[in-house]
């Protein structure tokens, strides 16, 4: 299998944006292409979760290719719910690794803030098992069920879950691309209103607009995709063997590390899917970055802070950088590329190997990507 390099990375600021999704994607794509020095890619992979319902637009691969002035470049769209961006990287990776393409533009984004919150929740909720949805189960509801089981099983406290939000907001203060650029205090997180008991408002990520892009090439660049893996689980949460860890992350991590030929001990920075703050702690244990039951304490002790032993979500994560669905999995890797190449400005950490973990749906279709500085 040929090596796959990341020769360009770019994104738009996340948050409430007035531009159209094609324009946001164009800004991210232009930034990544400029950084890569590639004028025209061989192929385009577009990631967006649900432009049909958010925007009333379909055939989105052609929509974006044409908008970018690449009407003659073959384009496909990839969708795995909230991990669509990571799935697009996976598709681009396989194209380059197989020799099908030498330069692939991977671009993802979502535009949601123009719709009322209940409507956005309803559209995101389409990724939940229909029977569970018929009982009013939303993403926060399912996350609430998992969080209660997790707290009962591991003894995780509300303090540990809340500290994740405090840390990620503190990181986002230093990130000009982040949705939220204000710090939050632990007491404020713990006193925020209950959304899905025991989850509170400040444990949940916001609704954001934005786009992110990468250029993957067969020609050598500063960062290499060392490993990438996909893992899956039953759509229905009630069918899961385990509620308090995600089989889909564990399988994805196992595949990614097997491809990379190294272990979790080599990882020096991580971007994980903290759509709900307890999910960051689950991710750190599922990927093997922390032993089972250790992530909460480590977070309280500052081990995952920007100046800690293993900085986690230096971008601010989904919690504070924001979560424009189709953009998210790509934005995680954009951040890692910037961190590995010394372009992370005020939030720069020292790292040669980074891990990104992305969750699709309620952990039904997850990806882990390992990147390494050349």
């Amino acid at each position, binding site marked *: 299998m040929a090596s796959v390099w990341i020769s360009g990375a770019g994104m738009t600021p996340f948050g409430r944006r007035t531009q159209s999704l094609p324009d946001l994607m164009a800004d991210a794509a232009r930034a990544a292409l400029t950084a890569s020095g590639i004028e025209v890619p061989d192929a385009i992979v577009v990631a967006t979760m649900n432009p049909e319902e958010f925007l009333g637009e379909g055939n989105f691969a052609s929509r974006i290719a044409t908008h970018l002035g690449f009407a003659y470049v073959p384009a496909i769209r990839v969708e795995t719910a909230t991990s669509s961006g990571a799935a697009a990287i996976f598709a681009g990776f396989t194209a380059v690794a197989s020799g099908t393409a030498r330069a692939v533009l991977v671009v993802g984004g979502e535009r949601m803030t123009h719709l009322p919150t209940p409507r956005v929740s309803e559209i995101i909720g389409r990724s939940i098992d229909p*029977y569970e949805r018929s009982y009013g189960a939303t993403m926060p509801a399912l996350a609430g069920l998992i969080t209660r089981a997790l707290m009962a099983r591991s003894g995780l406290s509300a303090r540990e879950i809340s500290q994740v939000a405090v840390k990620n907001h503190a990181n986002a203060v230093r990130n000009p691309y982040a949705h939220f650029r204000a710090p939050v205090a632990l007491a404020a997180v713990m006193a925020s209103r209950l959304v899905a008991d025991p989850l509170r408002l400040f444990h949940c990520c916001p609704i954001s607009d934005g786009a992110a892009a990468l250029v993957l090439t067969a020609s050598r660049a500063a960062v290499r995709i060392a490993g990438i893996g996909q893992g899956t689980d039953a759509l229905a949460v009630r069918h899961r063997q385990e*509620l308090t860890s995600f089989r889909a992350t564990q399988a994805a991590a196992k595949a990614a590390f097997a491809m990379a030929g190294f272990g979790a001990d080599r990882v020096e920075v991580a971007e994980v899917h903290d759509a709900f703050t307890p999910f960051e702690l689950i991710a750190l244990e599922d990927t093997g970055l922390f032993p089972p039951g250790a992530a909460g304490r480590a977070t309280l002790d500052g081990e995952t802070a920007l100046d800690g032993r293993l900085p986690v979500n230096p971008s601010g994560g989904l919690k504070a950088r924001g979560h424009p669905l189709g953009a998210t999995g790509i934005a995680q890797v954009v951040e890692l590329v910037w961190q590995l190449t010394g372009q992370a400005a005020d939030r720069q950490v020292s790292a040669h190997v980074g891990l990104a973990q992305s969750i699709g749906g309620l952990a039904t279709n997850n990806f882990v990507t390992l990147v390494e500085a050349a």
Partner: protein
Amino acid sequence: MPPPVIDQIQGSRCPQCGTAVVPPARFCPWHPVAMAPVSLTGLGEIVTFTTLHSPPEGFRSPLHIALVELQGGARLVCHGEATRGIRIGSRVAIEAVDRVYYFAHLGALDRARLFWRRAGRRGERLEAIARSWAKRLWKGRGRDTGE
């Protein structure tokens, strides 16, 4: 035959691995094997629960949702009147009202009734009384709208 005192829940079971699911599914989630219909007793344990404070349109707020594991092994999502006194591991009875499942806490008295139910007909009668009371409570108190 006395009337059944505990609701029977319709599900399906995998002939290969024994996995039971509710509602019935065509294939086992873990094997491409056709599942067989199975009837499960509506008694189980709370696996986890939450209270949703901003439920989707068509549901009352706050909305109590629990994940319950039935004695037959299948898990189901159901609604409840309240979560006060409910803990992970609490024993509950599942009632189907208008094809929607609800959990009700099995207090000490109810557990005694179940014991008597197993022991003889007197308990069955008591349980039937409790059950019809629960049904009356639920009627008209379910969701604001239908599906």
